[in-house]
């Protein structure tokens, strides 16, 4: 229902599953929406467009200095050259973590997120607590994710108030000098590209893989 009519906001909301079903059948009946197009959208974000795209971009930047320079100076050209382009990635900026600077991305006003490289945002990114706290207490946010920064590292928070979309380039973990880009991709978590965490260490990755195999 629209919310332009007066009503008591303590009423339990009607079941969204029923409302969505009714709305879809209405729009299909009116010839405005093709249900197969909805299926195609879902399939795109379930199987094609997700954080593995971003991990490939980061791993390439870690192993290809010319690509990294391009990524930091002209993110769209760099990212588009890998075949990632489109909705919610039209205008990209990549911000690099260093020993003294850690970057964190938020959208306080809604839930803007770089879909082309990270896919659809996780629930916590869209939640009121994250959107409220990321700009005012980023250290507290990192603490909740169990992330501690080295002494002397300061935080830059990027609030996505325009159509620019931000991607964090995490630091390459120690002990990966002989790793290929393909191997490095596994260390690039989605959360490290939002900035609430850092990239996985080889030891952490091994522990995760052991846990998933058991």
């Amino acid at each position, binding site marked *: 229902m629209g919310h332009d009519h007066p009503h008591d906001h303590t009423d339990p909301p009607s079941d969204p599953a029923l409302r969505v*079903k009714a709305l879809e059948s209405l729009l299909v009946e009116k010839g405005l929406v093709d249900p197969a197009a*909805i*299926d195609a959208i*879902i399939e795109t974000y379930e199987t094609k467009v997700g954080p593995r795209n971003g991990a490939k971009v980061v791993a390439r930047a870690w192993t290809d200095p010319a690509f990294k320079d391009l990524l930091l100076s002209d993110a769209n050209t760099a990212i588009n050259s890998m075949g990632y382009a489109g909705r919610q*990635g039209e205008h990209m900026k990549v911000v690099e973590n260093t020993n003294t600077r850690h970057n964190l991305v938020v959208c306080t006003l809604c839930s803007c997120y770089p879909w082309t490289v990270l896919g659809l945002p996780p629930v916590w990114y869209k939640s009121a607590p994250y959107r409220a706290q990321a700009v005012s207490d980023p250290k507290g946010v990192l603490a909740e994710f169990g992330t501690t920064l080295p002494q002397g590292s*300061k935080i830059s*928070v990027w609030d996505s108030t325009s159509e620019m979309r931000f991607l964090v380039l995490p630091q390459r973990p120690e002990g990966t000098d002989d790793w290929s880009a393909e191997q490095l991709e596994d260390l690039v978590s989605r*959360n490290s590209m939002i900035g609430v965490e850092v990239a996985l260490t080889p030891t952490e990755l091994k522990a*995760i893989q052991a846990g998933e195999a058991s």
Partner: protein
Amino acid sequence: MNGAHDLGGMHGLGPINPEPEREEPLFHAEWEKRALGLTLTAGWLGQWNIDISRHARERQHPVTYLSNSYYENWLAGLETLLVEQGVVTPEELEQGKALEPTPESLTSKCAPASAVANILSSGGPCDLATEAPQHFKIGDKVRVIQFNPTGHTRAPRYVRGHIGSISDYHGSFILPDENSTGNKIGQHLYNVSFDGDMLWGPGNDSTIHVDLWQSYLEKA
């Protein structure tokens, strides 16, 4: 507008409670998938733009906005837009049944499944040239104007009246405040950096970067 969506700095909302990355499903219910798909496909009918649709979500009653999940807010916004733009009638929405004929000018815009890949990978760029002069350059000190528009804006409350410095110039982009009323104009867009202690008080040593259009800013 000073709505519940403008969340930067709000207290009392509880912990973030993130689901572990490797355990979180992409969707938490089947209906969320359809809500996403309906929002996108209905948007492709071309009856509203991104700022009109953001404003439809953010002008819900604050209690409703904050109680809703993300996709519930999308659904509420979509229902509002469909009725306000005359795509469906309130009775049709209520009953989930077509009661009026749909004009060909609308049905002709229905995107088939075969068009989806191309639409998603093309996206919708939001840069738009302006002939107006650029007032600020990188390094300039600026103050965000003190204003409280009742319509849509992308200047969050937590930076209004505060001084920051221009850290980047993005080019000229569609101004959301006007776009939300259907008026598409380009305006210079800057990234402005603010010291954490200036916004939030002593002890905050972070830097907060906010993209702000030229009309939100004055020389400090």
